[in-house]
């Protein structure tokens, strides 16, 4: 694996060779194209790939991987680039394998409620393709209108409705992937479970470090017979977090249980003209779905608990249009933050749910001490926080403060018994905190597990675990801006 950038003549030669393998128009090597692919949605760190390839089939991915192996060139798979931890940053002198032309839905098996699609298929398109049959693909990351099935598999993506329906790993039955030897392999089966090792469970969420996923069979979930959506506002953040804790403790599992604080409310008010009650400091969006009678019972419990904690305003959606309106603050909240500051970095820690009130106080304290703005928007029902730090990245001192604040918040998550990431992954962003969470022994075990599938250093190197050859140089490159 090279540790310095190849010269431009070498890069041009690589581009020609790859184009002869793939076909005209399937290789991007101009300066502007490479710049367009120099980061994912984690924008603090950047790294230009030497070449970007756009394969259309599993066989083409295999040919690219084999070419990389022959030439000892590292490669990194990339979906839509909506990842938030830098998992799709290219290695030094590396090839970026984009799945943007692998968008086909290949096969639909309605009687068995499953569907096979290429890795570049957009999440939302999968649900749209089976809507006529009353089915959908349950994982619904906020990026679902652009993020891809392959990216969702790499990150084991969640989303608001995964509280009830489970994350990506619960909805993927089988994968087709190109392994690090350049062989096409199938993992899993249309019938889940059974004897043998759960290789699928380890591969999903491995952030593209164990091979390149090119196709998957996914489970389709029946659309609920009834959906009720509530947006409640509260005078204090603590009232809202306590409401969440009580709903969970009552044994009610809503389909979604989302929280937004004052910072997000201000941003969406500015962006979309939404009006919230005077003095409201937090919003809870609660959705119950399923069998109509069960939903009615859950709604009674939810509304009672909201009232017990002094909810100021409780809006229940009367129809689909109103439901979409209530969801606006949640779905478009982070985008709306763009009005408040030039740079937004969204964090992704998880804590045990009962610790939410304490955690929110700690975040406020960190933001004040570090002198940066933090708004909170998150999956309260499963304790998955998304503190949204806003600042100006033209000022190096603010970048440094934001990075430090983010790490401090994650350390609090670990102290409270939680996790470094609920759905965004480790990528390059959180590598430095992995040992704190898992200890040396935990990381050694993970490294051994990586070696089952990937004993080399070419497939998305130096992500998640930084202990391959050349990772010091890579971290210097990737984290140049952040450190």
């Amino acid at each position, binding site marked *: 694996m090279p540790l310095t950038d190849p010269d431009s003549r070498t890069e041009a030669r690589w581009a020609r060779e790859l184009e002869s393998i793939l076909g005209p128009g399937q290789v991007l090597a101009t300066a502007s194209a490479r710049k367009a692919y120099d980061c994912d949605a984690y924008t603090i760190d950047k790294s230009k790939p030497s070449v970007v390839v756009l394969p259309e089939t599993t066989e083409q991915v295999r040919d690219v991987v084999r070419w990389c192996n022959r030439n000892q060139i590292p490669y990194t798979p990339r979906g839509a680039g909506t990842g938030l931890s830098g998992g799709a940053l290219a290695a030094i002198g590396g090839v970026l394998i984009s799945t943007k032309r692998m968008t086909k839905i290949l096969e639909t098996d309605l009687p068995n409620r499953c569907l096979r699609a290429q890795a570049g298929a957009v999440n939302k398109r999968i649900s749209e393709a089976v809507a006529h049959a009353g089915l959908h693909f349950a994982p619904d990351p906020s990026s679902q209108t652009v993020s891809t099935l392959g990216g969702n598999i790499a990150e084991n993506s969640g989303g608001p409705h995964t509280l009830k329906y489970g994350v990506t790993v*619960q909805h993927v039955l089988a994968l087709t992937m190109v392994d690090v030897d350049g062989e096409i392999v199938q993992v899993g089966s249309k019938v889940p479970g059974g*004897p043998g090792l759960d*290789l699928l469970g380890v591969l999903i969420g491995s952030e593209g470090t164990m091979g390149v996923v090119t196709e998957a069979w996914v489970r389709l979930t029946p659309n609920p017979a009834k959906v009720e959506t509530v947006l409640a506002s509260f005078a204090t953040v603590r009232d809202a977090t306590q409401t969440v804790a009580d709903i969970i*403790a009552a*044994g009610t599992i809503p389909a979604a249980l989302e929280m937004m604080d004052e910072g997000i409310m201000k941003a969406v008010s500015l962006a979309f003209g939404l009006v919230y009650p005077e003095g409201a400091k937090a919003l809870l969006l609660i959705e119950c779905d399923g069998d109509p009678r069960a939903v009615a019972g859950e709604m009674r419990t939810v509304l009672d608990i909201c009232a017990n904690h002094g909810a100021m305003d409780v809006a229940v959606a009367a129809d689909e249009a109103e439901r979409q309106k209530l969801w606006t603050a949640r779905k478009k909240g982070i985008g709306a933050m763009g009005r408040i500051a030039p740079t937004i970095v969204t964090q992704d820690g*998880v804590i*045990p749910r009962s610790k939410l009130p304490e955690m929110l106080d700690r975040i406020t304290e960190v933001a004040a001490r570090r002198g940066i703005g933090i708004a909170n928007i998150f999956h309260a029902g499963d304790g998955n926080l998304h503190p949204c730090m806003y600042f100006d990245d033209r000022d190096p001192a603010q970048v440094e403060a934001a990075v430090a604040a983010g790490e401090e918040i994650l350390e609090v998550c670990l102290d409270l018994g939680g*996790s470094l990431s609920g759905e965004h992954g480790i990528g390059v962003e959180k590598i430095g905190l992995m040992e704190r969470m898992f200890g040396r022994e*935990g990381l050694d075990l993970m490294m051994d597990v990586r070696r*089952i599938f990937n004993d080399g250093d070419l497939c998305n190197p130096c992500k998640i675990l930084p202990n391959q050859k050349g990772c010091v140089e890579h971290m210097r490159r990737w984290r140049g801006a952040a450190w």
Partner: protein
Amino acid sequence: MVNTLLEPQTLEELADAVRDAGRMEVLGSGSHVAFDVRGPEGCAGLDDWSVALGHPTVLMMHRLSGIVEHHPEDMVVVVRAGTRLTDLQNSLAERGQCIPWASPLGDIGTVGGLLALGPPNGLEARCGGWRDWCLGMTIVRPDGRVARSGSQAVKSVAGYDVHKLMIGARGTLGVIAEVILRTLPLGARPEPTWSVAGSLSASELRIQRTLATDFAALLSAARDVAHVADEATCTLWSADSELPRFEHDWVMRAGCGPRNLEPFDAVHTGWMRSAKKLLDPEGKLNPGALEAI
């Protein structure tokens, strides 16, 4: 037959025992030995594990038991692997919670043993199974190192889900010492919707799962055999008999011997061998079990 019986009571004792021992059989309470893929035909017998196995050292996990932490408000429990499932369910019930598990055999076995075998759940369609409930593990490696995976957060994508690899690995890749599990309020636990025809015994159990489109044909073939059928997950627990096989299906069979083996393709076999070589290089844990697969 058994020369050495190891029965550690603490994590430290377990780590020392595993480090110092040579090749060993790892058992929970011994109740699922009947699902062994090795040994002679017809060796099954629930209390007969010492006869069923031919190895000089047996590591019995039943004394490493009890709840380490239970956070009812977070619906998370940390439990030692040797805890019998009935004991865990009773303790959780005192706080109004449970593990939403249903098996035609009832709550037999230990938590670690059930995870190591990974049998299907009778409430799986609505409540998931072991793979969905297990949030993390403490694993003792064959050289005595203690590694942790996962966390108490109900949702986490930090690092590789190493604990998922241990589920269904039949104790061949590491010794499960402690487990972090999701719990469910008792009131939210549904009743199984399976249909029951006759009674089943652990020693003659056969479990098969098919595609939805094949399940009616399987049920029809099984009409004269004692069985429990869950249409929601297309799973059939039945008395052992020769039932038809279908594309994509799988079977787990009680008893000992190669007839319990499911064939795997070359790539999977290669990965499984590689997993064994990397995680248990000296082949100390449950020798033969994974190699047989």
